[in-house]
């Protein structure tokens, strides 16, 4: 029996990734799958991702989200991905609970900006061009903005953990991490 009767290449999963208020470390960890990247390219094709030049997300199967939500643009991008992706995965501490950037939540954003954009004479000039999205009062975990299907902990989760999780999802298995792959640091 021919598994591929029309000679068409087998369908690949469409995979989007985005970094919100994260440090890019979770994306770097995705690249820490090393040579398995070539295997991944056989299983999935990238949609919107910092690694591609696709700037707007289209319908896709899996979206990996790094980082929490710190401004209006993050909200917009997160909603765009939720609307387009069948499965949304919160990858890493920042997406799950805000992570280190959420240390700012004990301070008022206005006070921080005041301090950072104060000149020698004590005057404050906070960048306010319409091109700059508005900062939110706090860093929010992504599940406070949209529904999330899976949470993959770690700061960042290791390349091996991401590989296991992703291939489970792509191949239709319930994603599970063995004890050694499950880290919170």
């Amino acid at each position, binding site marked *: 029996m021919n598994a591929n009767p029309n000679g068409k290449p087998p369908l690949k999963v469409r995979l989007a990734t985005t970094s919100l208020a994260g440090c890019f470390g979770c994306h770097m960890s995705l690249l820490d799958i090393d040579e398995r990247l070539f295997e991944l390219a056989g299983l999935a094709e990238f949609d919107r991702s910092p690694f591609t030049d696709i700037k707007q997300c289209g319908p896709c199967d899996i979206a990996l989200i790094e980082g929490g939500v710190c401004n209006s643009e993050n909200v917009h991008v997160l909603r765009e991905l939720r609307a387009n992706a069948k499965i949304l995965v919160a990858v890493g501490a920042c997406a799950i609970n805000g992570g280190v950037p959420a240390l700012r939540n004990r301070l008022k954003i206005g006070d921080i900006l005041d301090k950072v954009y104060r000149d020698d004479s004590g005057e404050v000039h906070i*960048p306010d061009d319409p091109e700059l999205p508005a900062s939110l009062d706090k860093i929010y975990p992504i599940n406070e903005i949209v529904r999330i299907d899976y949470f993959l902990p770690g700061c960042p989760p290791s390349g091996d953990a991401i590989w296991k999780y992703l291939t489970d999802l792509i191949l239709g298995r319930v994603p599970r991490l063995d004890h050694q792959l499950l880290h919170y640091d």
Partner: protein
Amino acid sequence: MFALEQAESPEKLRRIAIEPVTRVEGHGKVTILLDEDNKIHQVRLHIVEFRGFEAFIEGRPYWEVPVTVQRLCGICPVSHLLAATKAMDLIAGYGALTPTAEKLRRLLHYGQIVQSHALHFFYLSAPDLLLGFDSEAGKRNIVGIASAFPDLARQGVLTRKFGQEIIRHISGKRIHGTGVIPGGMNKALVLGERDALRGDIDAVIEWSLEAVGMIGRLHETEPEFYGRFGESRANMMGLVNEDGDLDFYHGGLRARDADGAGIFDHADYAAYGSLLQEDIKPWSYMKFPHIRTLGAELGWYRVGPLARIQICDRLTTPLAEAERQKFIAFNGGAPAHGALLFHWARMIEMLHAAELARALLEDPDILGTDLMADKGPRREEAVGVIEAPRGTLFHHYRVGADDLVSYCNLIVSTTNNNQAMNESIRKVATQFLTGHEITEGLLNHIEVAIRAYDPCLSCATHAIGQMPLQVELIDAGGALVSRGRKGF
């Protein structure tokens, strides 16, 4: 006022945005304003996020800071770990590091330079350089490189992997490890780890050399195009050791002007506040630093590979120095300022870092177990500076007797390049876009210039700096707005 920074009547112009800038680390966008004839009037690279790391580091215990500030950046966490710990070494009262501790830190740093430069070249920029600036957008990525140039893609992946493995062996994790602590290191490198790294290093040097050769050949095909693309004549700054050699880990600051004449040399980096000053502009969260004595218009500068290899007197490793000499000869002996020359310089540095790593892997000290320096009196304030993959990185802290941080100021490499990047994209807009129907491929030319700097917008959004500031608020007509408080 810089050309193309501010259109005279922005409300009458058409706006094109590149949003988000892709194949860079972090978030940024570019806006371009043009008229009906597609003449360009304004081009800006905006940093659109604000996180203000410095503010919430205050009040945290000092020993926690090196691992917290790593979370500024997942691409070069080691840079922040090292710069912060160099400051905390002094604050905690430690004297000179033990030879093993310093060598382990250096090896860690060289591993990071290899991985970061490999990431940038093979994963992020090679698609432009090898597939074409206006090749099909959907294929312009590492997967496209893997199908067109499978051997090269594999070498790139393995080179990055090698750098990451150095980091893992020394700091416990590939990203956000520990290992480095005030006063030294908390873990020795064991024989098995050293030998695993030694097994791969020769191949990495070989591939780095090939990458340098490849980018050099690319420039030879069309020297004018590649040499002048996004060219912006800038001052240059970086660390050198006492002999004037490039030193990624420690040294004094050297700045030279666009022709190579000295501005300052072997300057103590702890005095960075008297050497540099930052400006705020209302359209970007990233500040604009410049050399204080020269002022904002003339004092902006470039850091990173292209600056470093042109201001140092030499690279201390033979293969990399030979390649540096070829680079200088190719550019006629005078400092060169084309944006794409960054890639060439970056690959020379990758080769240099790999050679430096090999020398350390062959050094018996690297397996030593004397990891902690002697402790003397504490200090309240210190500055730690290193040459991160993207350029000079400043960390400045004050810590109270209660061990809590009372002041933190960070100037990340990418911030140093803010004006230079803006100048390069304005140049590209003038060279390629103005008067043309704007296509996706042409817009990618702008991104090609940004990518050349390998900006880490992730660092840049987190670390905002609290330097003395000079403010330049310009209204739509180009006039200076009165200096009133801008409310939030």
